[in-house]
């Protein structure tokens, strides 16, 4: 009787823990995505994206791993986690390097102050060629 109830408690704890991790991961994913929209230039946006790829995905995958238990599934999730761990920084590093070498410079706070009230990129559709 007491054993069963302690097992129940264990399952409850696992559920609560994994649930909290999944929710926190989702929260960070949204935060990162908002950062991708709101940040002023490509380098700061990169910073926002890394939130998704590290803590967001990390927490989400860890939560799912706890939920999956000691199965093949958890191992696969772990592989995805490790893969993120290696590839995401490489991709971001590549973007940063390419942007720098192409003459893109990080926006400094002086740049922002010197700008007029419309500090955010003006309607970016200007750059796209509407063909009419």
């Amino acid at each position, binding site marked *: 009787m007491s054993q069963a109830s302690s097992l129940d408690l264990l399952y409850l704890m696992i559920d609560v823990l994994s649930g909290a991790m999944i*929710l926190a991961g*989702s*929260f960070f*994913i949204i935060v990162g995505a908002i950062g991708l929209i709101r940040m002023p230039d490509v380098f700061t946006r990169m910073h926002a994206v890394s939130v998704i790829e590290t803590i967001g995905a990390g927490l*989400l995958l860890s939560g799912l791993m706890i*939920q999956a238990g000691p199965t093949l599934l958890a191992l696969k*999730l772990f592989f995805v986690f490790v893969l993120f761990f290696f*590839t995401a920084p490489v991709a971001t590093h590549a973007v940063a*390097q390419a942007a720098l070498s192409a003459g893109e410079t990080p926006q400094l706070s002086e740049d922002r102050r010197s700008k007029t009230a419309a500090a955010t*990129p003006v309607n970016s559709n200007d750059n796209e060629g509407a063909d009419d």
Partner: protein
Amino acid sequence: MYTFATIAIIAALTLAVTRAVRGPTIFDRILAGNTVGTLAILLLIAIGFLFGRPEWLDIALTYAFLNLIATLTILKYVRYDDLEYDSSEKGPKS
């Protein structure tokens, strides 16, 4: 719980696609494209758990590998003069 995660990922996906659509520089698009790839992987996993058949995480691994290949290809060509960097794409500062 899974539903919430799925909704969060889809919201993030929407925002990332918005960034890819709006630009303004080519690097924003590349970054957003990379993020869309990442979020597609997470979406796949979340949907798998949500609908009760999570055993296809293999696909997620494929996505991650191919995402890396695409990003690195694009960036190699941007960086090593193989592709003219287009000045009209420079965004607000030009």
